[in-house]
């Protein structure tokens, strides 16, 4: 078992970060390998709070989280090396490109491994490998991160986490701020990393089109509670998303509109525009 939430609640005291939302009685199992999960929910639904529990960045106020067999509870446990947990579960925050600070790309990526007492030589190798994993060649090594494009910066910051070779990778809205082409490139990249390494990847996103097209499992949070855990297909088919303040993928919305206004019988559950187009052509409308 990779990560297991056992009836976890987290309530923030008024002194702590006012931006985070509470979660209530969340139970959830995430395998150590082979998972590709979308974590969705509106702002204030508690999804970022949930993500922060995944590498013991915060502790539950009730219940416990098992992370690679270490049990995290309200109380700090001296026998648990929290740093090791954070090495096993890498968390990439939203807009990580704001956190680049070294003068070269390679130095920035090496920062994490060096913090975990790895030799300089080894950290360098890890960094170069991570750079390749995110689709940037070695020529980027000596460039200044500030002169990179938004998409490139994002890749560098993701490489910084990958260089620590975590078993599980959690990313908070990695595609926000990118143009549509950049979004797809990044999603393909995650899929590729997932395929090549079998690492479990958990991605927080608002983009239902991406959830539908790319993911096999969706976890939905609403007002601090876990309200759905299953395939995106049945989420969109069988659940009323508006109750959870979520939207449907565009293909479904567009085809539903055609069915309604033209009294058609199109199968609305198409993942891409091309699939939707085929469905319309199959109907051969006049």
């Amino acid at each position: 078992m990779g990560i297991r939430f056992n009836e976890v609640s987290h309530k923030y005291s008024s002194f702590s970060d006012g931006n985070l939302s509470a979660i209530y009685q969340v139970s959830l199992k995430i395998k150590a390998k082979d998972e590709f999960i979308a974590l969705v929910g509106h702002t204030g639904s508690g999804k970022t709070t949930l993500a922060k529990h995944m590498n013991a960045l915060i502790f539950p106020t009730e219940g416990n989280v098992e992370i690679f067999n270490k049990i995290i509870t309200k109380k700090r446990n001296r026998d648990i090396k929290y740093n090791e947990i954070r090495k096993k579960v890498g968390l990439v925050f939203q807009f990580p490109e704001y956190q680049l600070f070294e003068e070269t790309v390679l130095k920035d990526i090496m920062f994490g491994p060096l913090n975990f007492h790895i030799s300089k030589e080894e950290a360098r190798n890890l960094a170069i490998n991570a750079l390749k994993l995110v689709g940037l060649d070695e020529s980027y090594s000596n460039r200044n991160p500030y002169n990179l494009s938004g998409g490139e910066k994002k890749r560098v910051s993701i490489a910084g986490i990958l260089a620590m070779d975590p078993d599980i990778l959690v990313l908070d809205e990695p595609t926000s701020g990118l143009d549509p082409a950049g979004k797809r490139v990044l999603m393909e990249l995650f899929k590729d990393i997932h395929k090549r390494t079998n690492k479990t990847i958990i991605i927080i996103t608002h983009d239902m089109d991406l959830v539908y097209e790319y993911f096999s499992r969706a976890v939905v949070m609403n007002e601090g509670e876990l309200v759905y855990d299953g395939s995106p297909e049945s989420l969109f088919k069988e659940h009323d998303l508006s109750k959870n303040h979520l939207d449907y993928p565009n293909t479904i919305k567009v085809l539903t509109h055609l069915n309604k206004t033209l009294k058609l019988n199109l199968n609305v559950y198409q993942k891409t525009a091309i699939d939707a187009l085929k469905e319309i052509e199959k109907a051969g409308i006049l």
Partner: protein
Amino acid sequence: MSYIEVKGLDYSYTKNKKVLKNIDFSINKGDWVAVLGHNGSGKSTLAKAMVGLIEPSIGSIKIDGLELNQDTVYDIRRKIGIVFQNPDNQFVGVTVKDDIAFGMENLAVPREEMLKRIDFFAKKVQMEKYLDKEPSQLSGGQKQRVAIAGILAMQTDIIIFDEATSMLDPFSREDLMKYIKKLHEEGLTIIMITHDINEALLADKMLILKSGEVFAYDDSHSLMKDKDVFRNSYLELPVALEIANSLTEKKYDSVKEKLWEYVSMK
């Protein structure tokens, strides 16, 4: 003469690489223009140049007949304001009230008048109940609304939104778009930089940048009928129009009509 006139604008951050190349366009008062373009196309640089945060290498920007330069920059900023992408990067005040006041303080608005405007514009963006709250207690959408109130309070009549909704969730986004729509109906000139084609659809016109140049500038409807314009500038059309533009045979006319109707419903 147009309300905003940009002529022959060039800008480079480093010696050899131009980020903006010979940018020419004009905007009429009350227009809503969406500025689209791939990452690195020069959208944000253009926005910064228009509010005088950076100085173009060549070319001119005129707003309401006034040419932007070091002497006029403060007068220009009474006419044009900007809301940035990251709601957390634009807060200076300890409370929402202080924050709305900040811009006016720079313009030396008298206290009495300032208090009046704070109340008025806080109400306008429906944040009047939050005036004494700390900005950190607000959601991203609420923060952006406060930022808008601060700009409106300076009584500018142009606002540039530089990906102002991109860090918001869909509902805060929709909510913010609702306010922007309302402000536009009341006569505000809007320049909206966005990656979100569904947001761009609300604009009367679209300005598409590609690698620092104006690739296309026309009314939104006619641009969107041309799928090559979008593809050639690395952009995507909304799903409904991607489908509509691919249905060329006559038997699909009814479907096409409904697809366009779907897009314009928003």
